[in-house]
């Protein structure tokens, strides 16, 4: 039961952290909650479908369909988060001002909300499908321990959601002056971490070269399967044994998004 709780916790935690950060980052955008729930539901339905078609996805593209699928899902999420941060850089000041007053309504709020929905949906889709498969495996296997294990799964899920929510609530306590800078930095690291994970999947599928694997090994100092390692992996994409290519992806996304934010934040000048 304990083992089940930990496995489910790990999967749920990643999605919960992403949702916590993105929800905080879109604070003050009108209609946000509705879109968030829509993203959650779409992700849950999608993960059921993905779980049911695991074999079909896996056999696609000569056995590396799963990696390709994950990399594409992550890639889209990275693009969305990049877009979010660039948009925030140009509208953040306005949003911060409005969030302080009661009526927070921004004309471009709708596109920002659809980004929120897609990112949340993709996060749930990716992590949820594995959880569904795992729980299905338990439920399908005979033996009286199934109920206890499913109970463990429920505990793991609640614990994951609790961490995600605490992160969200904690972020909201940051003074408004620094708030959007803080969430922007978190989203930036989140996107970079996702890019590194996407590279990891493409290496596993042999679609891109690893370039030194691993580049370093910090698994004895900070194991990736320990609690801190799991947290850091979800938050900033920590990998105890990264391939060189993963680091390149990580840094490239960091640099590109930061540049985009800088350019967007500049007061409009004629070029």
């Amino acid at each position, binding site marked *: 039961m304990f*083992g089940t709780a930990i*496995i489910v916790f790990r999967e749920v935690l990643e999605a919960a952290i992403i949702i916590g950060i993105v929800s905080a980052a879109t604070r003050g955008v009108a209609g946000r909650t509705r879109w968030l729930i829509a993203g959650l539901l779409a992700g849950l339905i999608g993960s059921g479908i993905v779980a049911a078609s*695991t*074999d079909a996805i*896996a*056999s696609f*593209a*000569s*056995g*590396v369909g*799963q990696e*390709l699928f994950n990399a594409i899902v992550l890639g889209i999420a990275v693009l969305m988060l990049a877009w979010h941060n660039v948009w925030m850089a140009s509208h953040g000041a306005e949003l911060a001002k409005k969030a302080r007053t009661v009526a927070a309504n921004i004309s471009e709020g709708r596109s920002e909300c659809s980004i929120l929905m897609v990112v949340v949906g993709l996060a749930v889709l990716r992590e949820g499908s*594995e959880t569904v*498969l*795992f729980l*299905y*495996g*338990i439920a*399908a*296997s005979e033996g009286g321990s199934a109920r206890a294990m499913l109970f463990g799964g429920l505990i793991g899920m609640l614990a994951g959601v609790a961490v995600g929510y605490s992160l969200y609530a904690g972020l909201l306590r940051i003074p408004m002056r620094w708030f959007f800078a803080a969430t922007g930095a978190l989203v930036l690291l989140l996107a970079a971490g996702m890019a590194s994970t996407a590279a*990891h999947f*493409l*290496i*596993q*599928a*042999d*679609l891109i070269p690893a370039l030194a*694997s*691993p580049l370093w090994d910090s*698994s004895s100092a900070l*194991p*990736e*399967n320990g609690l801190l390692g799991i947290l850091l992996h979800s938050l900033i994409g920590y*990998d*105890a*044994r*990264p*391939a060189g290519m993963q680091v390149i992806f990580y840094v490239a996304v960091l640099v590109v998004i930061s540049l985009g934010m800088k350019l967007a934040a500049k007061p409009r000048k004629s070029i």
Partner: protein
Amino acid sequence: MKNIFSLLLIVTALTPVASSAADADYKLVIKDHRFEPAELSVPAGKKIKMSIENKDATPEEFESHSLNREKLVAGNGTASIYIGPLEPGRYEFFGEFNKETAQGVIIAK
């Protein structure tokens, strides 16, 4: 920009077809939540394609921290995975969904 992106998509879509045939194959079978063989010897310093066949009805996840790999295998399904090039040594792996029984090790020589 759009053209580069679609070109990239085409290239990634075609690559696995081109590269998969040439690689040496190693095979793992999952049965009754155990890996068969539980000990697999592979050459060091080479990239290896490994296929994992799951003969159980329930899904399994092949996972290895030392190999930095994680791969879902559907019930009664098969999945392929690339590992290495590896330094000589022992690399433990396990089935995350049935950790008590599904244990194994890859030995790179």
